[in-house]
């Protein structure tokens, strides 16, 4: 137990240089972006004097090194600066938008795992059967349909034509108030507040974007599950287990699936990090106030503080995620320990 805690401590310490690197690189890269934020935010009508005023207010008139020192000083105090395009402190923006994105991405991943993993296992166990073909069709459809297309299609069918889905107006219909904020996840917060009505409303809003994203993320997970299961099932220990007369369930799930889980978890981690940053188009279609569209708009406007804050938040998130995945490896497969490193 002590060994494990120490191992985790070492892993955490290893993330520090990564984060420092991210801070430096994001600072330099944003400065290398074309465009002058002072000019952009002073507005088209502004004259030289007011542009200079904005430049000073943003601290952009100082040498790059001084700017960096100031930025790091602010960071140390937990101040990520203020976004010019939203007019809010970056921390406030992130605190509002990150849970929105996380809620959407996590529900999409849960839904997609619920479908993709059983589908992949069944496709591997009954190779060549109709379920294998179904898996192939779903996977092909999932990767070949761009998310914005699926999104618009779902809106068109379920909202516009059938009227089953609520208006795609973000996280909550304007008839409901945001539940008291605890986690920032509306589903959880509304349950904590015991407000089932808001819970149902938030769930309704979440349904279509979740399905859209789930369709997209289903493909890699199902493919990976199927491939990993096939490999596991064809290995020697499975043959041995079968020869020893173990039950089919014990063979498939106890030995096959558990060994196949490692690559699946790795894929899950990759899909999660990819989707969290890349679901801009889904966010736009469903007016979802997420972090992807925030980052893109900040980038277009050369909004330095917002871009840096976004990159840093994502970096911390990925580092944490990788840590969790590494730890879960050890849980799934006891052969993988931290001591070996």
């Amino acid at each position, binding site marked *: 137990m002590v060994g494990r805690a120490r191992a985790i401590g070492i892993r955490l310490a290893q993330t520090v240089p990564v984060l420092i690197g991210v801070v430096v690189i994001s600072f330099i890269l944003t400065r290398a*972006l*074309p*465009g*002058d*934020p002072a*000019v*952009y*935010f*002073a*507005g*088209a*009508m*502004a*004259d030289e*004097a*007011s542009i200079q*005023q*904005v430049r000073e*207010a943003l601290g952009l008139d100082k040498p790059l090194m001084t700017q960096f020192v100031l930025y790091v000083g602010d960071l140390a105090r937990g101040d990520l600066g203020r976004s*010019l*395009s*939203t*007019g*809010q402190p970056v921390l406030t*923006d992130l605190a*509002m*938008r990150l849970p929105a994105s996380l809620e959407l991405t996590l529900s999409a991943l849960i839904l997609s795992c619920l479908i993709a993993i059983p589908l992949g296992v069944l496709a591997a166990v009954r190779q060549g059967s109709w379920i294998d073909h179904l898996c192939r069709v779903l996977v092909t459809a999932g990767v070949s349909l761009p998310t914005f297309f699926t999104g*618009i299609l779902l*809106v*068109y069918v379920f*909202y*516009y034509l059938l*009227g089953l889905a*609520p*208006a*795609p*107006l*973000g*996280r909550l*219909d*304007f*008839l*409901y*108030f*945001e539940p008291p904020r605890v986690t920032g996840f509306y589903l959880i917060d509304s349950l904590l507040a015991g407000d089932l*009505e808001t819970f149902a*409303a938030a769930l309704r809003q979440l349904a279509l974007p979740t399905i859209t994203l789930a369709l997209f993320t289903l493909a890699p997970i199902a493919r990976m599950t199927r491939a990993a299961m096939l490999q596991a099932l064809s290995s020697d220990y499975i043959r041995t287990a079968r020869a020893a007369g173990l039950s089919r369930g014990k063979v498939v799930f106890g030995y096959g699936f558990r060994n196949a889980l490692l690559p699946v978890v790795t894929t899950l981690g990759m899909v999660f990090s990819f989707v969290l940053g890349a679901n801009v188009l889904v*966010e*736009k*279609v*469903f*007016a979802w*106030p997420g972090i992807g*569209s*925030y980052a893109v*708009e900040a980038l*277009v*406007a*050369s909004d330095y503080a917002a871009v840096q804050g976004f990159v840093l938040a994502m970096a911390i998130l990925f580092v944490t995620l990788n840590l969790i995945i590494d730890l879960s490896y050890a849980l799934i497969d006891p052969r993988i320990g931290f001591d070996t490193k």
Partner: protein
Amino acid sequence: MNTNRRHFLKLTAAMGGAAMTPFAWAKRADAQGLETMVVASGQTINSLDLHRTGTNRASYQVAINCYDRLVGFGSRQLPTGEMSYDYDTIVPELAESWTISDDGLTLTFTLKADATFTDGSSVTAEDVKWSFDRAVTVGGFPTTQMQAGGFFRPDQFEAVDARTFVVRLDYPSKLSLPNLAVPVPFIINSTVALANATEADPWAMEYLHTTTAGSGAYSVTRWDQGQQLVYERNDAWVGGPMPEIRRVIMREVPHNSTRRALIERGDVQVSFDIPDRDAAELVGTVDVFSTPIENCIHCACLNTRFEPFQDPEVRKAIAHAIPYEAIFQTAAYGRGAPMWGGPAEITDTAWPRPFPYVTDMDRARAHLEASSFASGFPVQMSISLDLASWMEPAALLIQESLGQLGITTTVERIPGANWRTVALVEKSLDFHLENFGGWLNTPDYYFFWAYQRDRLFNSSNYDNEEVHELTERTLHMPMDDPEWAPLVQRMFQIVIEDLPRIPLYQPALNVAVNGAAGYEFWFHRQLDPRRMTGV
């Protein structure tokens, strides 16, 4: 009716399972006049304070709806039947009356006695003075806009007594009074603002950024940045006729297709500033208003620093080679007003006006052959990525057409954050598209920004001594001065001949309405719900 959430949830539940369709409430409200109007817009609101640096155009609506100015504009019916604000009619807002001295230098306003801010305190001339001082001091866009009306320094404004406010001008100008009706000189509750000001922030920029402190028709009760803004009516408003709609919800919906589905289904009453294409296709399904934006023209600009464009024959060749109709149909889906094929003779002072050029490749060839660049030349055509929706198709059509003359163009796409610097400040783009629009609706004001030497939007580096002089003379001259019309017509004549900017078309502001009425076009291109009603 008090429509808090619990209340109508009970109501909808009482309506038997209607809670499943949350919009039942909005629909039911229709029957008794519109209680709540939901507006979908693709733009984000980034501040409640127009004077703040970095406040974007969408946020100007807060200044319009939550604050009053001394005066406002009346309304009129356009020849198309649509309603518009009326530049020529100034109506009282916070001022009950005003007088202008004989020399035109002193404007004296008397405030309405019963005007109050939303906190209940009276609006005084001190508040007006503080707000105007703020607008001319903070720099950036508000200060520039104030200067257009001749307001430069705080010492021009005086609060004589609680209800009398005086503005002293350096020179008489026809732009002064209308410029007090634009969104910028809005009147802030200075007591509240000062209570929240600090030494580093004497104008309470931080406080007013997130809170409104005005006397306007509405006040902001909720602002979720990036999602929605909720206006609630101010029942003590005296600035004009009491608005019918009690609550307005502005929802941000970034995707055009989503906005279109919402308006067609009737879940929002207004979809504001929709693309030309959606406007063209929605006609017949919902009410669509496509009002040509006053004093705004989409132009192809020829930079006078580029050698071939110094040859008048080359400029005319290009003016005859541009496929105007194709651009208007492809880039604007026919929404807006054509700016080509106008009469050769100038008999009126209408502006924007169609220039007397038409697409005629034979005449274009003839002009090019008469120039010293008969075999054509290569040129780079620049467009802004922020405005790609119309610039891209227009540029490609122009490219194709000029190619037939031997003028080979390459299209360069410039990121929005760079555009202003290269196009307007450095004025370094040889051939480019541009779209200046002026708030104050007079031709001389357009000339001031777009044709006068060294002005910001004169991205062609146009420098004509006579145009410069004429603009100086006409800018502040009253339009009913007998001298004004002939001078302005002479200005038209010169720029039509010189062609530093070739007008393509006048763009439209498209708004789709489903379940509401009373929409009016405003020069500031924001929704003014104050005069809107239910069906």
